[in-house]
């Protein structure tokens, strides 16, 4: 029911919204919850397990019941708290977990079966028959469980992430937070004030309090105005600080568009911030807790403080006849405020025998509420008076206050455990639990307004080592509470309403020896609902304490984990989603390749052209054509992606001798040598060529995949292992566009683009040098990864696209053209070159037949460990070639396993596997590389290639791992 003269809603801006298909009215400044209550809607959802009817309990982010799906279609947003969802015109909300309707939910039958569905019942049944679990029991359970539903579609919406830096982060903008922010701001510090609500002010918006002689909201406005004018302050409303991490880092979710009917073009739905804060003041307030009694989950039973929030902030009375059940002064305040607003208070029930309070309504001191009545909404309550007599009291809303729990959650994120405070019967943050963070105000157990103002100013002053500012006048009453947790009696008294955990369940956990807090939590699921136990944990601890005869702090508390309130997966991810997950590295020939219709493959972050199909060609036809083209004429391939590291310095040669297995100090200037690198554990890390451009100048080539790893490794060797060596290196991968030109006509093509003489005398196989490429200074390397006469020609990357086109054009004129990674792979398999398919990180130099490349004359990284017995010997698999006995055999694929001819197929008889395989157009049959046990000694043997994934077996001859031009004449010719 809406009340005139109350609230901060904008009555001049009415809005329409829909709930479960019906249209209602509200105002700008409403939450969905306040608007529903204003329309007298109390039943808003069903519980998780028993499907009990539920209503709104809170006015904040700790809400356990009022979870709804907002919006429709792909953008539907399940499990949204109505208590924090701002109302906007056209908002569409649907209740969850009820079928066919909220009022009539067939799954409510579970509630009748409750005696059989207590804590942990599912561990004790559904075990027979065995096969039925996946088919019947589990699908039924899964269907019944869950809250809202994802749309199942990509909503296409984007989220931002960002970084912020400040001297002081203030979390919460109630009286403590505002004073903390003001303290920092006036001292000229960089301050961030983060408020989860859409309005600054915290409880000052929800109480009839005055500060400095003004109404609370007016004082808030004046402080916010001052802060907004300060250039060193960032005000962030709709921003929840979700997690505390190491080094003063906090995660924070800023809602950008959740309160808008649609997402403005280009704007994110929300921004997830990582805040690096010098110091932090936690002023996140406190959560009011409930008292457990029979059927205390009926719609209409609410936090007493929430009732005041709806009254003062939204001008809504959640009921027409309100009763109050309280063990502390806070409930009395609710009663007084309601009476002042003209709302009928039917009774205040306080288990304490005496209080100072005297209100013009029925007051039952020493009484308790024993039961709530009314299935779909509260009708009345049963009250037991001190004399034991039970009476019924009319109430369509029961405001409950069991005391307050300071919002300690963030202080637990770094494993801190809170301390128990007897004064307020609650946990308070342990100082220092999060380094650099000080709790203030209600978050630190300071419940009076003046106390909060004071402690906020003090906390900021202490944090920043400055003087506190003057604190304005405000209410400063002492908080009084007598702990009271649970009204004993029959029936179910709920502790965790969302997960349907009652006092009975905690007792069952105790009975079955789940007495450790963690066991109790896991067995009953208490505190594991979407509010992470904000409402339920302390009450359950109190009950376990009584059952085990211990104090609450002895029983302990469960750990609160980030995030403080749930955060969408998409928000954490930000823009690094879908195909912008990681950067795309493009080669100099990317545009040309796309023009030529290339298919691409991933290599590290690079996109490399895989093949260039001509009309009518599939990948294999294209690959065969490109391979044959290189073998017969000339092909051009972009090899820019290979890592290129420029190495200079007086000790460059010594350095390379230590990182490669073989010698580089003996390499002549103008020559290139193949090199092998080991990890320190003796296995092969990478291979590639290294060219000596000058006495103290080399250019190392790495594989595309290992470029980053090798660079970091070199830096490690130089800075950590041998800082005495005077050598410098830098990546020049992106500086040079580099193309392989391979095939019998390669020299013809190179002659056409390179100014210098490229005869065998000037540019022999494995020669290199500076050249002029079509008028541009470039580099030429006579190296081959195909077995053909070949070059790699490099120019500064700005000319890469042009050179790619120039080379392609000339190659085509010679009958050749572009070739991609597929053909490149076939060419190298035919010729016997390896890639990371072979040197996969588990392979030794000996395995690939390069044992002799580990120089005996010197030490190098990995040399000692490569001599371990497990890295040698006939038990190891060694690289061999495989040639099918039947040249038409189609079933020869990488990943197949090897067996001896007559052997049974078992893990024990497994002899190895295929690392690479392809159809060789040059030979007209498939060929493969394999790692075969003791393989070098088995050339000529016939083995079985078994591929169970395809159900094939192929007989192959074992050969040397080189099929093409074993003498190497083509390379040199």
């Amino acid at each position, binding site marked *: 029911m809406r009340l005139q003269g109350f609230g901060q809603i904008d009555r001049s801006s009415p809005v329409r919204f829909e709930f479960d298909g019906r249209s209602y009215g509200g105002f700008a400044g409403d939450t969905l919850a306040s608007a529903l209550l204003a329309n007298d809607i109390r039943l808003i959802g069903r519980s998780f397990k028993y499907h009990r009817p539920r209503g709104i309990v809170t006015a904040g982010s700790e809400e356990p019941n009022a979870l709804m799906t907002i919006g429709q279609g792909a953008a539907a947003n399940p499990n949204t708290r109505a208590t924090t969802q701002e109302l906007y015109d056209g908002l569409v909300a649907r209740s969850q977990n009820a079928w066919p309707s909220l009022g009539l939910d067939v799954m409510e039958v579970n509630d009748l079966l409750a005696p059989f569905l207590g804590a942990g019942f599912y561990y004790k049944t559904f075990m027979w028959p065995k096969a039925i679990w996946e088919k019947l029991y589990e699908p039924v359970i899964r269907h019944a469980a869950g809250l809202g539903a994802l749309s199942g579609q990509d909503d296409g919406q984007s989220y931002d992430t960002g970084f912020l830096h400040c001297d002081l982060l203030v979390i919460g903008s109630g009286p403590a937070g505002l004073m903390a922010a003001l303290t920092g701001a006036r001292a000229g510090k960089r301050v961030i004030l983060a408020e989860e609500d859409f309005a600054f002010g915290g409880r000052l918006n929800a109480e009839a309090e005055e500060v400095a002689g003004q109404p609370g909201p007016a004082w808030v406005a004046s402080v916010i105005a001052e802060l907004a004018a300060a250039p060193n302050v960032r005000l962030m409303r709709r921003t929840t600080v979700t997690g505390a991490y190491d*080094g003063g880092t906090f995660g924070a979710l800023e809602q950008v568009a959740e309160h808008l009917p649609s997402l403005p073009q280009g704007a994110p739905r929300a921004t997830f911030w*990582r805040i*690096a804060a010098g110091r932090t003041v936690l002023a996140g307030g406190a959560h009011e807790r409930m008292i457990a009694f029979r059927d205390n989950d009926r719609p209409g039973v609410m936090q007493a403080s929430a009732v005041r929030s709806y009254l003062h902030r939204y001008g809504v009375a959640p009921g027409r006849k309100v009763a109050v059940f309280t063990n502390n002064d806070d409930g009395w305040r609710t009663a007084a405020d309601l009476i002042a607003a003209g709302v009928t208070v039917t009774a205040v029930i306080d288990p304490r025998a005496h209080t100072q309070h005297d209100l013009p309504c029925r007051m039952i001191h020493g009484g308790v509420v024993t039961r709530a009545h009314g299935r779909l909404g509260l009708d009345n309550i049963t009250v037991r008076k001190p004399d034991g007599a039970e009476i019924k009291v009319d109430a369509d809303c029961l405001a409950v206050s069991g005391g307050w729990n300071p919002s300690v959650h963030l202080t637990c994120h*770094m494993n801190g455990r809170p301390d128990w405070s007897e004064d307020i019967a609650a946990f308070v943050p342990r100082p220092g639990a999060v380094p650099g963070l000080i709790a203030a105000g209600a978050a630190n157990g300071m419940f009076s307004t003046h106390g909060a103002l004071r402690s906020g100013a003090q906390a900021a002053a202490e944090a920043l080592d400055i003087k506190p500012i003057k604190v304005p006048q405000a209410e400063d009453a002492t908080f009084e509470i007598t702990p009271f947790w649970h009204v004993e009696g029959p029936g179910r008294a709920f502790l965790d309403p969302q997960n349907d955990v009652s006092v009975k369940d905690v007792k069952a956990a105790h009975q079955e020896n789940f007495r450790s807090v963690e066991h109790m939590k896991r067995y009953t699921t208490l505190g594991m609902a979407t509010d992470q136990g904000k409402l339920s944990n302390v009450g359950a601890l109190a009950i376990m304490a009584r059952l085990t005869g211990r104090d609450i702090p002895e029983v302990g508390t469960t750990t609160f984990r980030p995030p403080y309130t749930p955060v969408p997966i998409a928000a954490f991810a930000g823009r690094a989603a879908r195909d912008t997950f990681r950067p795309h590295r493009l080669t100099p020939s990317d545009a040309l390749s796309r023009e030529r219709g290339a298919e691409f493959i991933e290599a590290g972050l690079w996109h490399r052209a895989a093949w260039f199909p001509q009309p009518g060609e599939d990948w294999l036809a294209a690959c065969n054509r490109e391979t044959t083209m290189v073998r017969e004429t000339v092909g051009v391939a972009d090899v820019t992606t290979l890592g290129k590291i420029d190495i200079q310095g007086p000790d460059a040669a010594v350095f390379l001798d230590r990182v490669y297995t073989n010698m580089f100090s003996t390499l002549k200037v103008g020559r290139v040598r193949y090199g092998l690198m080991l990890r*320190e554990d003796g296995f092969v890390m990478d291979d590639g060529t290294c060219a000596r451009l000058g006495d103290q100048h080399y250019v190392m080539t790495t594989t595309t995949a290992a470029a980053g790893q090798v660079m970091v490794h070199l830096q490690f060797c130089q800075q950590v292992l041998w800082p005495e060596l005077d050598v410098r290196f830098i990546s020049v991968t992106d500086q040079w566009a580099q193309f392989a030109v391979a095939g019998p006509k390669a020299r013809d093509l190179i002659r056409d683009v390179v100014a210098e003489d490229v005869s065998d005398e000037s540019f022999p196989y494995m020669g290199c040098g500076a050249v002029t490429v079509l008028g541009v200074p470039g580099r030429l390397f006579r190296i081959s990864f195909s077995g053909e006469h070949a070059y790699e020609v490099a120019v500064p990357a700005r000319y890469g696209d042009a050179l790619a086109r120039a080379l392609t054009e000339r190659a085509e004129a010679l009958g050749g053209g572009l070739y991609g990674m597929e053909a490149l792979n076939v060419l190298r398999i035919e010729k016997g070159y390896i890639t990371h398919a072979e040197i996969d990180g588990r392979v030794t130099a000996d395995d690939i037949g390069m044992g002799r490349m580990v120089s005996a004359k010197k030490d190098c990284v990995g040399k000692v*460990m490569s001599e371990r017995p497990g890295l040698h010997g006939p038990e190891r698999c060694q690289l061999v070639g495989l040639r099918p006995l039947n040249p038409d055999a189609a079933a020869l694929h990488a990943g197949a396993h090897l067996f001896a001819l007559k052997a049974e197929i078992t893990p024990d008889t497994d002899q190895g596997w295929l690392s690479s395989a392809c159809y060789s157009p040059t030979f007209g049959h498939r060929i493969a590389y394999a790692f075969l046990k003791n393989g070098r000694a088995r050339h000529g043997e016939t083995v079985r290639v078994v591929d169970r994934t395809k159900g094939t077996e192929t007989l192959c001859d074992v050969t040397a791992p080189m099929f093409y031009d074993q003498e190497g004449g083509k390379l040199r010719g």
Partner: protein
Amino acid sequence: MRLTCPLCGPRDVREFSYRGDAVLTDRPTTPEGFHDYVHIRENPAGPHDELWHHGAGCGGWLKVRRDTVTHEVLSVALAREARS
């Protein structure tokens, strides 16, 4: 977590990559020590000397002393300078 790079100043941990125990700076000079060097780790629950690489920053290898229980960073130095 944040590390104060001696060259770049305080930076978010995302800029760094982690290698492991700083024993890796003491590469043995004889074969006998290599198994320990490559494999055996003290792995303390408490202060730990370790190597980080500022890959997205200056490229420096850092020797960091950090508590493995609290994640508190106790000191940071360039590995080549902290070496001997």
